[in-house]
């Protein structure tokens, strides 16, 4: 398939000029400990990958959707055990959760 050169040029302009601007536009970099030119866009925009907040849980004996050999991130804290299937974590990367009074961030 032939590509229209003017469309390629437009993409080039977007890639070089617009995307880095969008990537940096909403953040306050006046205070920082890493060089700015090493912060790159990973593709999706801010919240393009939606973090979970106040997630719902299912008791183990009701979790028919789980396969015995599938990978989970297991956390045991304050007497509470929770498993986070990594196939779900991969779609959200972050879970803002709570173990009793302890606020917990699960990151993947």
């Amino acid at each position: 398939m032939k590509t229209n050169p003017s469309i390629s040029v437009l993409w080039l302009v977007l890639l070089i000029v617009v995307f880095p601007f969008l990537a940096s536009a909403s953040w306050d970099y006046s205070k920082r400990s890493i060089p700015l030119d090493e912060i790159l866009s990973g593709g999706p925009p801010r919240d393009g990958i939606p973090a979970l907040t106040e997630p719902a849980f299912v008791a183990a004996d009701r979790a028919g959707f789980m396969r015995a050999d599938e990978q989970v991130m297991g956390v045991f804290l304050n007497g509470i055990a929770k498993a986070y299937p990594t196939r779900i974590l991969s779609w959200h990367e972050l879970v803002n959760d709570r173990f009793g009074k302890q606020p917990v961030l699960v990151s993947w």
Partner: protein
Amino acid sequence: MVYSRQIKGTERFFGVSGLLYRSNVLMYDRGSESLWSQIKGEAVTGPLTGTELEVLPSTLTTWKKWRMQHPDTQVLSLETGFSRNYATDPYLDYYAQQSGFRSFFKLGPGEKEKELVVGIVIDGKAKAYPLKEIKKAIQIKDKFAGIDVVLSFDASTDQLSVVDGSGNNIEQITVYWFVWKGIWADTARY
């Protein structure tokens, strides 16, 4: 990685910024809009720059092994409020690929970008231990940054433990080699 969201007395909520720093996901907190390195657990831009997150213990294992250890466990529901195809992991291809994004360093002999390493930091000095070596040896005793380091792996629970000579827990993370090297450029390697 699992962290406390209680930061200097304030509960913070985190989101995905869409930005990367040396192959590492940058997350942000919704209160101060600081960017945080997910692997390092430290704010790298914004008002909270330099603030470190407290690491909480976690294990990467299978559902079967986790359930055996914790029969009363709960599991994250598929009802997340988002419509996603949870039957498949979107990163399956990524896990299978040999290469990663590592324009910032050269691989040494025998090293692979996507090999899993267990990383520790003592007095600002970093060292990585290939997970395969720990699994093979079951236990590795090492001396690093002036202290004794004992790494053990329990295959029945997939529990990895890293302790010092007195049995005190040493914080550790399991990540791809190129990700660790991206954060700790001058890391030692076992």
